[in-house]
């Protein structure tokens, strides 16, 4: 048995999957003031009649960290930032106390100027005075050489005033100093909140005699074990859309370029598949005002759903972006797309009330109430189409850096659309016409997010840099900074990267057989100094891509 739980803003959904089938589901409202209790009571209800010793794993998608950030209930964080020459530094101040220190490491990882222990000591005094016990240390180009971050950590650790310390190079191997600063800050800021939560979970599990491993869903559609999540709680933010994305894939699989839509009551979430593989945010996801390096599935949410309120402005229909309440036919304040569906008999509800809503709108447009529903659904489909086109245009003009990519680079050309959500069935034929693409929707979608969470596998990504002139190999995420010999080849590096990414996935709780490791980027540059080749500079990205533990056995319609 696999248990999946998805915590949304309003509801918590949970499922048990056994032999590739859903055998139980529970839906409960989210109690915003006690998120742990909401999760635990949902799990208790879900597992009431089942043998808890049969649970193989529990996958949770939780908003614990997200809420803490958005609602500003995080712990105060002290920041030690070494920004070196470049952009001005003031805008990097995101902690409750920010100390900028001297010293610099350059783009090749060469220490240009050492850090100054006196400055760090002064920082410690400031943090101590303010009772700050969460710390992040971030230096520019630390992914090229983590020396300063590690040395500073060693010095401050002995002071024993910090409950947690985040080092910049451990949050991601990607180059982007401001994002590294913000991501490290957020990791330390939600550390206590998340660890409180995980301790509660562990205690409750022990009390109930459940000893299945717990995994937490990440924004990239993969999972990590609880232990890793405790160290990198920032990875747990914004996993909701990822759950929905994985849910769609569990119910409707595809190996092609595809558009995935989750059309709900308030919003429509848009995702893409490229040859069946999710499209990721190029650098990382944004939460609140912070742009981060947290790997995430590319998702765009628009304020358009079944319950979006409809207005007439300047003789045209405006749907959303606000939801003012239920559909008019259910006693809500204003007409909605749901009313149009009820009027057409495509959804259950009070048809008379629904037509009343159509009449309110029709009067403003001089159109009969009979014509209104089609007009509304067409407008809705157009809005989705326009947005998708706009996003695709943007995605397909992402910067490229080689002639080959510019001439022959991959362009996303969707071959189909997979939709879930309340209005999916009604909108599918309309969208099919607008996009000129086949549209698929599953029979049951109500617990798609929980299913997505349940079936997600551990994922990870590493960024490797090999500089044979310096004789150094680095993988910042795994804290690897080691010597290699001058003859190290790209093939050696790729082999090593695959081994490392697999090992890293196993550390996250993956089993050997479920790991699909791949090299996603590779390049090798001759480094020439004077007229001689001094070495090679290789850059490799490897990932264990998100995927499903199993495909769900169910039916789809088209």
């Amino acid at each position, binding site marked *: 048995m696999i248990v999946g739980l998805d915590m949304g803003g309003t509801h918590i959904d949970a499922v048990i999957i056994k032999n590739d089938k859903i055998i139980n589901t529970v839906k409960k409202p989210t109690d915003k003031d006690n998120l742990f209790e909401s999760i635990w009571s949902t799990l208790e209800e879900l597992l009431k009649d089942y043998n808890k010793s049969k649970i193989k794993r529990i996958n949770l998608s939780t908003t614990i960290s997200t809420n803490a950030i958005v609602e500003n209930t995080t712990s105060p964080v002290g920041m030690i930032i070494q920004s070196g020459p470049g*952009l001005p530094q003031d805008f990097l101040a995101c902690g409750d106390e920010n100390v900028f220190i001297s010293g610099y490491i350059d*783009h090749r990882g060469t220490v240009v100027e050492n850090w100054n222990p006196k400055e760090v000591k002064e920082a410690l005094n400031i943090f101590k005075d303010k009772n700050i016990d969460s710390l992040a240390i971030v230096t520019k180009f630390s992914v090229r050489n983590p020396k300063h971050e590690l040395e500073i950590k060693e010095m401050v650790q002995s002071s024993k005033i910090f409950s947690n310390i985040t080092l910049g190079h451990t949050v991601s191997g990607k*180059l982007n100093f401001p994002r590294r600063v913000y991501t490290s800050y957020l990791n330390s800021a939600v550390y206590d909140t998340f660890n409180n939560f995980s301790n509660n979970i562990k205690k409750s599990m022990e009390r109930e005699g459940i000893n299945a491993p717990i995994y937490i869903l990440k924004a990239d559609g993969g999972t990590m074990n609880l232990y890793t999540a405790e160290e990198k709680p920032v990875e747990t933010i914004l996993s909701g859309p990822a759950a929905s994305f994985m849910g769609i894939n569990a119910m409707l699989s595809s190996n092609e370029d595809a558009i995935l839509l989750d059309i709900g009551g308030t919003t429509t979430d848009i995702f893409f598949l490229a040859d069946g593989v999710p499209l990721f945010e190029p*650098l990382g996801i944004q939460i609140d005002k912070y742009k981060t390096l947290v790997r995430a599935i590319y998702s765009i949410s628009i304020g358009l759903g079944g319950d979006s309120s409809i207005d007439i402005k300047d003789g045209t229909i405006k749907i959303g972006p606000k939801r003012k309440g239920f559909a008019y036919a259910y006693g809500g304040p204003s007409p909605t797309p749901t009313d149009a569906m009820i009027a057409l008999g495509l959804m259950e509800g009070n048809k008379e009330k629904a037509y009343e809503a159509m009449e309110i709108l029709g009067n403003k447009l001089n159109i009969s109430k009979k014509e209104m529903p089609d007009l509304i659904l067409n407008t809705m489909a157009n809005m989705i189409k326009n947005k998708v086109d706009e996003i695709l245009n943007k995605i397909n003009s992402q910067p490229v850096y080689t002639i*080959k990519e510019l001439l022959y680079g991959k362009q996303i050309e969707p071959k189909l659309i997979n939709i879930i959500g309340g209005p999916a069935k009604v909108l599918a034929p309309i969208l099919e016409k607008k996009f000129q693409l086949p549209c698929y929707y599953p029979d049951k979608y109500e617990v798609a997010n929980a299913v997505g969470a349940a079936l997600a596998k551990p994922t990870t990504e590493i960024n490797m840099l090999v500089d044979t002139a310096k004789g150094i190999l680095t993988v910042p995420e795994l804290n690897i900074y080691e010597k290699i010999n001058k003859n190290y080849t790209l093939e050696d590096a790729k082999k090593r990267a695959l081994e490392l990414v697999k090992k890293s996935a196993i550390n996250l709780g993956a089993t050997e057989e479920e790991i699909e490791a791949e090299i996603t980027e590779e390049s090798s540059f*001759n480094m020439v100094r004077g*007229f001689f080749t001094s070495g090679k500079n290789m850059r490799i990205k490897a990932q264990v891509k998100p995927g499903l533990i199993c495909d769900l056995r169910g039916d789809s319609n088209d």
Partner: protein
Amino acid sequence: MIKAKNKLGLVFFPAFDWAISPTHPEREERLLYTQDQIFEEGIQDIEGIKFFNPIIADEKDIQRVHFCVPDVKSRVTQSHLISVGGAIKASQSVMEKKVDKSFALVRPPGHHAQRVVYGDRGFCIVNVEAAMLERIRKEYGPLKVAIVDTDCHHGDGTQDIYWNDKNTLFISFHQDGRTLYPGTGFIDEFGGPAAYGYNINIPLPPGTGEEGFIYVLENVVLPILDEYKPDIIINSAGQDNHYTDPITNMNFTAQGYAKLNDRLNPDIAVLEGGYSIEGALPYVNLGIILAMAGIDYSHVHEPDYDKDKLKQPKNITEYIKQVSEIVYNRWKTKDELRLKEFKGLDNVERNRQIYYDTDGILETQSQNFKICKKCSGLNTIKSSCDRGYRIFAITIPKDACSNCIDEGYNLFKNPNGSYTHIYLQDRVNDKYYAK
């Protein structure tokens, strides 16, 4: 997060899969560390800075500017069309007001490519700025343009292309041609008969530093631009005046380049040379980007930057003051100088030998500029090279009068002498012929 004061478009195209040869300065690795620096600084996330991919320039974009011998296809590779296309994209984004300014970090470079192209010289085959500029003139109408070439080498290709065009003011400051490739760019190279005074060279002594460059900018370049009043300013942004550049002898800095771009305030900048790929380019490019975007660049400097060591010696400062005075005086008196130079002539002939250092080709060229009262005058090139080509090339300038147009077509039909190839560039009708 930081917000740019000026909306800046960036075409960053490092062409990681292109090199002249594996150990050539113009190789795959050239913009690798610049990319690292741009990425690490988080330039992508700055509000108001937008990245664009290059478009691919077409044959006509090249023909507007060059006589490629025997033809465009044989001389110009896909990478050149993309480099030009990158610059075109950058300039379009400015002309269409998507951004306030733009910077094309593209390679290969172009400012040594002259009108006739037999091959590669100074790592250049196609003049990127010129091809870009003629394309945007084609798309957006006539423009009065100033090109300021801040590469350490004289921009002899751009000089050649705009030699007789008053609507394109070319200003190049560079290391003195007596001490560096291509060995030209002296004060008396002042333009053709229809544009005398609109080609300005400021040769600077080896060892010129921040002080000298800024002096030239403030005392020669900016006053001239003030008087010329161009619609747009293009910076041909070579970065090899840097103190760490391996093939030049100047002492300019990242701070200096940033200041220069801040004060010059170009609408479009296009990367040219610069081969200190680790010690200079990441910082110089960052400095230029920030300066153009109107973001504080005062923290941009090289890791080994030492102000005292780079201080410009007094004698150099004095020399530069003298050069500046001479150049500026010539600009002020250009009309008198023109009369003195061309009075009573109806033709001006210019004979030169041009060496293609990268490809080892020697060209012998004779140019003829007709002095016409109604327009800037038909001009022709007779040229041959040691590869066996012997060509005749006719240019009907953009402002040509009907007589000059007819004469151009007649010459194309009935040339004097025998040639392997004959070319006609009809800039009035944007038509290009070869036989």
